[in-house]
């Protein structure tokens, strides 16, 4: 418990200092809050309590969202004609597959590589056993506490008594503890860290979600997960969890397990270095990546000034910048295959839904492009490899608008490729589902491309206006985070709204043009002052 308290104290102390630091940057508040505030531990303890409270509320909110949106909503949406006891069976099935199996494989803490683990054990020299036991107890105590209210609340809706729900949550918690044991044993036997095997984990996630929802669409598929409602099964799982908990509490080899999850074993590293390494590895380059091919060298010869610099930057960091792009194209490819498979399986139902989707559900593109557009990775690379040094030169800062335009051009092209791929994939799905070519498909293309411009502008605009990175790439400017979250929230709203496609396209195109103009004006006016190393 003491170990855990120390960890939390450090974490909140960092957060609170950061919040105070950035709040003081806001006009008006700076005058109200003096620098001496950093030394007022009483006040800071108050704020940290508040932070804890908000984090806790966040946990509860997430649990409610999970139970409502992932477990319950699909049932009333697609299975409203199910009898009540079938609804409960389906609910238990989804819960069993996702929370017991999928999450058991994908999110075990025991061998999870984590920065906090590294800092605590490697840098602050906490005992690995103490740290791991504290983390695991906290994780599963919280798991139980936060899930319980959400489950009790949804219980009556699927016809389950509070007792049934509470037992279900307890069984889930204990089986997850058992999974920790399985991960550890697997590691001891094979030396492999299960959570790091990305391919396997994703396969389990995808298959798991299909298995969870399949009984809703194919009545002949049994909701086998309902076995977790049976008391013998519950007894076995709870006993297994109990056994695992005792085993983990007595386990003596945590050092090896923690070492496997925190590879960088260097006693001379300080904390900043550790954080820095974690972030900088995301923008790491190898010497050989810097070599230019002949075509590039030829192209460079003609450039001048900032165009020359920009050309060299993108040519030398091609691998780094293309990586997120390739991942997104792969995701779109995967979605295309999944879409075609869905049509193959549920052809008639989907074909019936399609015209409706095309008429009013284009707003879904917003959330798709929010996640698919690249920007964060690219601006981070720009900062770390180029701007961090060049921003020291006034002449470079003064030309912010010039390089903003050059970079915007690049980013727009890159995101337009993603948008085009997405639009093409949707077109193929529509045609495959038997929907003829119609105006709505054209609107998909226009909206997707406009959104790609919108998000490109957004990422670069915030980078130039707020410059969120520090030289260690660690602390983000909260204003930046808030601005991004607001956009994320707005995109999230697009999940549920229905707008005629033509109106939606016009609005998106209009907003994109407005945002672009706003960005151009503001960057031109302020970036020479705001775009700097903090």
């Amino acid at each position, binding site marked *: 418990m003491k170990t855990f308290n120390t960890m939390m104290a450090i974490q909140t102390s960092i957060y609170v200092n950061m919040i105070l630091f950035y709040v003081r940057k806001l006009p008006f508040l700076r005058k109200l809050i*003096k620098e001496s505030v950093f030394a007022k531990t009483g006040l800071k303890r108050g704020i940290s309590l508040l932070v804890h409270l908000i984090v806790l509320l966040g946990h509860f909110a997430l649990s409610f969202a999970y139970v409502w949106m992932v477990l319950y909503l699909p049932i009333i949406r697609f299975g409203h004609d199910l009898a009540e006891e079938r609804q409960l069976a389906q609910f238990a099935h989804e819960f069993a597959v996702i929370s017991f199996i999928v999450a058991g494989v994908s999110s075990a803490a025991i061998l999870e590589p984590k920065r906090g683990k590294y800092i605590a054990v490697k840098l602050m020299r906490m005992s690995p056993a103490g740290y791991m036991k504290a983390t695991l107890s906290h994780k599963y105590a919280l798991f139980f506490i936060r899930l319980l209210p959400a489950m009790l609340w949804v219980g009556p809706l699927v016809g389950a008594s509070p007792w049934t729900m509470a037992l279900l949550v307890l069984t889930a918690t204990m089986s997850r503890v058992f999974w920790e044991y399985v991960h550890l044993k697997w590691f001891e036997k094979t030396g492999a860290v299960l959570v790091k095997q990305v391919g396997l984990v994703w396969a389990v996630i995808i298959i798991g979600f299909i298995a969870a929802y399949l009984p809703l669409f194919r009545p002949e598929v049994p909701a086998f997960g309902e076995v977790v409602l049976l008391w013998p099964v519950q007894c076995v799982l709870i006993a297994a969890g109990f056994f695992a908990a005792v085993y983990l509490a007595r386990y003596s080899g945590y050092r090896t397990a923690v070492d496997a999850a925190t590879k960088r074993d260097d006693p001379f590293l300080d904390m900043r270095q550790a954080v820095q390494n974690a972030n900088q590895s995301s923008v790491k380059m190898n*010497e050989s990546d810097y070599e230019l091919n002949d075509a590039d060298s030829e192209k460079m010869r003609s450039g001048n000034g900032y165009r020359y*610099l920009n050309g060299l930057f993108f040519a030398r960091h091609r691998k780094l910048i293309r990586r997120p792009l390739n991942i997104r194209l792969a995701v779109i490819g995967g979605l295309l295959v999944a879409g075609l498979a869905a049509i193959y399986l549920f052809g008639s139902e989907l074909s019936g839904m399609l015209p409706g989707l095309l008429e009013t559900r284009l707003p879904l593109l917003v959330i798709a492009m929010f996640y698919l557009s690249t920007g964060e990775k690219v601006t981070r690379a720009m900062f770390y*490899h*180029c701007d961090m040094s060049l921003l020291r030169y006034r002449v470079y800062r003064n030309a912010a608008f010039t390089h903003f335009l050059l970079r915007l051009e690049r980013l727009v092209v890159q995101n337009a490729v993603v948008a085009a791929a997405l639009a093409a994939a949707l077109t193929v799905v529509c045609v495959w589902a038997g929907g003829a070519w119609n105006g709505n498909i054209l609107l998909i293309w226009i909206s997707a491309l406009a959104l790609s411009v919108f998000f490109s502008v957004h990422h670069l605009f915030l980078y130039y206006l707020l410059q969120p990175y520090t030289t260690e790439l660690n602390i983000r400017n909260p204003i930046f985070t808030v601005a991004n979250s607001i956009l994320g929230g707005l995109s999230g709203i697009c999940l549920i709204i229905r707008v005629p496609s033509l109106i939606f396209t016009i609005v998106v195109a209009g907003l994109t043009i407005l945002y672009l103009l706003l960005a151009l004006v503001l960057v031109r006016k302020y970036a020479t002052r705001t775009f700097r190393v903090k």
Partner: protein
Amino acid sequence: MRLKLEGIEKRFDAKEVLRGVDYTFEQGKIYGLLGRNGAGKTTLFNCLSGEMKMDGGSALLEDNGVTRPLAEEDVGYVYSTPILPEFLTGYEFLRFFIDINRERMKPDEVRPIDDYFELMSITREDRHRLIKSYSHGMKNKMQMLLFLITKPPVILLDEPLTSFDVVVALEMKNLLRQMKADHILIFSTHILQLAADLCDELVVLHHGKLSSVPLDLLQSPEMEQSVIKLLKDERDDENL
């Protein structure tokens, strides 16, 4: 050419760092700026280079009898650790740098890129290597090269020479001596010997004000003691 500082003030919240800095620096001399850690040397440099706004006072540049406020582009700032874009080769960086400064240079001043490298005795092979692979000394040479191109009247050097090997340090010293004819050179340092060896004048920043150390003291054996006495707080004395 002279740089006149008049009553420069700078405070951070309640903490007054610069409390009316007055001094006149002249072309043709190398000035050593001494001060304890936290005395405000870097703050003063940041105020002069325009990185920070001063709270009061002014910095004026007097050239050929005309006095005008010191502008940002009049000042070249050499950082203690050279900061250069590592993904470029030395040659590429210089080409880019000349490009973006071209409009501020007189046409007859622009020389072929290789000439600049010759000036710094950077080999042909090194010019086309990535800056990433340069040694500390080489990076410093690159940074100094930039001032040979833009020729700012005032050059501020923050803790230079401290991490050089003897050969590079000597090269840099000679370079600074060559440059002083056309520039006002001020460098901050902790190292008294270096200051005594290289500087024509020694200035001390203490309690937010600048004062000069008499020239004859600079050469005398008691210099070290006197400067330390100057920099020490009364509070420290009590502690002793």
